[in-house]
């Protein structure tokens, strides 16, 4: 975790208003894990004082390349699109805690809503490298916002839902989940908060519907890991990657918290951005 100079290698608009940028950043490309993020500084002369957080979309240790995938939302993201190959930029990371895959999980269900794909994309690479099976459920408003399958590893089973039915299932991506409930050992999701909340509700009912959750049954009444610990998260069926506006991204400012079931706010940048779904107080709590 250091502010590090990175050089833009490639920048492409892969979907309307959505950009994929590759940076040469060897320090980041080694040791980063799926679910972690970088905090990116905008131009020096700008009136923009805050960095912008982006998920590590992919990393390639061999070439020292990391990619981010972002949507043009406001001034900062607009500014990034103006960078040209060769431009230097300051990427701070890797930050936050990664997804934790149970060593016994064979079937991983990834659920992404829109830009949420950037949050789980790297997990697909990691899982396939580890010989796991991956199904990615992807939801978007319409066909023109659907993530191109060419940007996914061949091994990924890719299922699409669109709100208007212009491609794949018509409706919300959450509607696809029950079909995979039994198949999946674990699920990992990133996307708009309402989508994550719906998934959390589904996950909470799953144990009842399936009888016994596949994972954890061998553990019987053994010791319980403290909530929020990597070990506890590793056992969770559903892990979600959360978003919050950030100041510092290292846990210093308490700007980025989410309320948890324990009644204590947790920092997305430090305890997150990945949480077990059951840690989160989905209805708020302030």
């Amino acid at each position, binding site marked *: 975790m250091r502010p590090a100079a990175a050089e833009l290698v490639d920048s492409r608009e892969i979907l309307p208003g959505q950009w994929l940028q590759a940076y040469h950043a060897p320090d980041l490309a080694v040791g980063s894990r799926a679910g972690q993020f970088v905090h990116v500084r905008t131009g020096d002369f700008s*009136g923009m004082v805050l960095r912008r957080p982006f998920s590590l979309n992919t990393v390639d240790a061999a070439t020292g390349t990391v990619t981010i995938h972002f949507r043009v939302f406001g001034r900062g993201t607009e500014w990034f699109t103006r960078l040209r190959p060769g431009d230097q930029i300051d990427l701070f990371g890797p930050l936050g805690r990664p997804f934790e895959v149970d060593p016994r999980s064979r079937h991983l269900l990834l659920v992404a809503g829109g830009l949420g794909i950037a949050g789980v994309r790297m997990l697909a690479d990691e899982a396939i490298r580890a010989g796991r099976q991956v199904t990615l459920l992807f939801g978007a408003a319409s066909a023109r916002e659907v993530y191109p399958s060419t940007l996914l590893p061949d091994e990924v089973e890719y299922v699409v839902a669109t709100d208007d039915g212009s491609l794949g299932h018509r409706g919300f991506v959450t509607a696809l989940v029950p079909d995979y409930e039994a198949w999946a050992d674990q699920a990992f999701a990133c996307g708009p908060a309402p989508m994550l909340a719906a998934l959390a509700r589904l996950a909470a009912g799953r144990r009842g519907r399936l009888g016994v959750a596949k994972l954890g049954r061998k553990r019987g009444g053994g010791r319980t890991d403290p909530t929020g610990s990597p070990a506890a998260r590793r056992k969770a069926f559903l892990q979600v990657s959360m978003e919050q506006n950030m100041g510092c991204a290292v846990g210093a400012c308490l700007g980025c918290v989410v309320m948890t079931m324990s009644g204590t706010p947790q920092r997305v940048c430090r305890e997150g951005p990945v949480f077990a779904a059951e840690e989160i107080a989905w209805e708020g709590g302030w």
Partner: protein
Amino acid sequence: MSRRRPLPAARPALAPATRILAPTRPAPAEIPAAEVDLTVDLGRGLVLPNPILVASGTFGYGVEYGEVVDVDRLGGICCKGTTLRARIGNPTPRVTETPGGMLNSIGLQNPGVDALIEKYAATWMTWRTPVLVNVAGESVHEYVEVVRRLDGVPGVAGIELNISCPNVGMGGLQFAIDAGAAGEVTAAVRRATDLPLLVKLSPNVADIRPIARAIADAGADALTAINTLSGIAVAPDRRRPLLGNVYGGLSGPAVKPVALRIVYEAAQVVKIPVIAIGGVTELADVLDFLAVGAVAVQVGTAIFADPTLPLRLVDELAIECSRRGMATYRDLIGSALPARTGRPSAKGVEYRP
């Protein structure tokens, strides 16, 4: 999507339905932009053609930008601060840039009210756009005297009282920082004229609400907010403050959050319209200020970077309404205000970092 697997039969979305991306709302019936009602009725017969004004001190007397801006398409023009007698203003430097803003200390250089009338009123009379004369003074008497001379002058559509001036009768305390003094000067001017009367709030106060209330109670037709924040800069050699007058007024995008707060608070405690000023540089800023209760906005500092901005904002506002199927921009006002504004919140004062 070659690798898409055959989908299970479509089924109803799970309850409660979740929306993954912004819902595709039913497209509203589009109103042609030219037909959107942008007029602002401030009472006493003052109807602005649209809610985009230019702020006092940044657009001179309306004539200086003549070659660049078609003044007749503006919503209104607040001219440079005018006093009873001519003033030569402050020593230089008078302006400097600051991060996201600027400081100015013009010191109310102006030819005095009589010369103003002689030089500009006839021109203003030929304009469709109302010109509001920004009035300053150092005593209630001075304000009243200036306004009296403006009363009835063709071409003068209204008054904007700049009360961020020292009240010599009160030991130099600004009228604007004291509810009593602010109310007193407003009431006195109100008695002196039937012209539409706008009073401009200073942000350099701990709580704007009693001041806003006092001004409204004293008979103002509208509030304008904000004037500049008090600030300084240091000369490059660091042997003195940079501005000739030491103190300057901070304006520009940097002050927008403060302006939003003051407008938000004032709009909740008065019934008269509030016109917002402070850091407007694009349509989003206009929409933000309308959302917190402003009926119109003034563009100031941003004119220096882009003199064509105010007119562009007029067009863009009409297009925005048109796109959203709104027959009048007034539907945008107050959308971010708390639903019940009955009991004024004490939050402004209770703010904790």
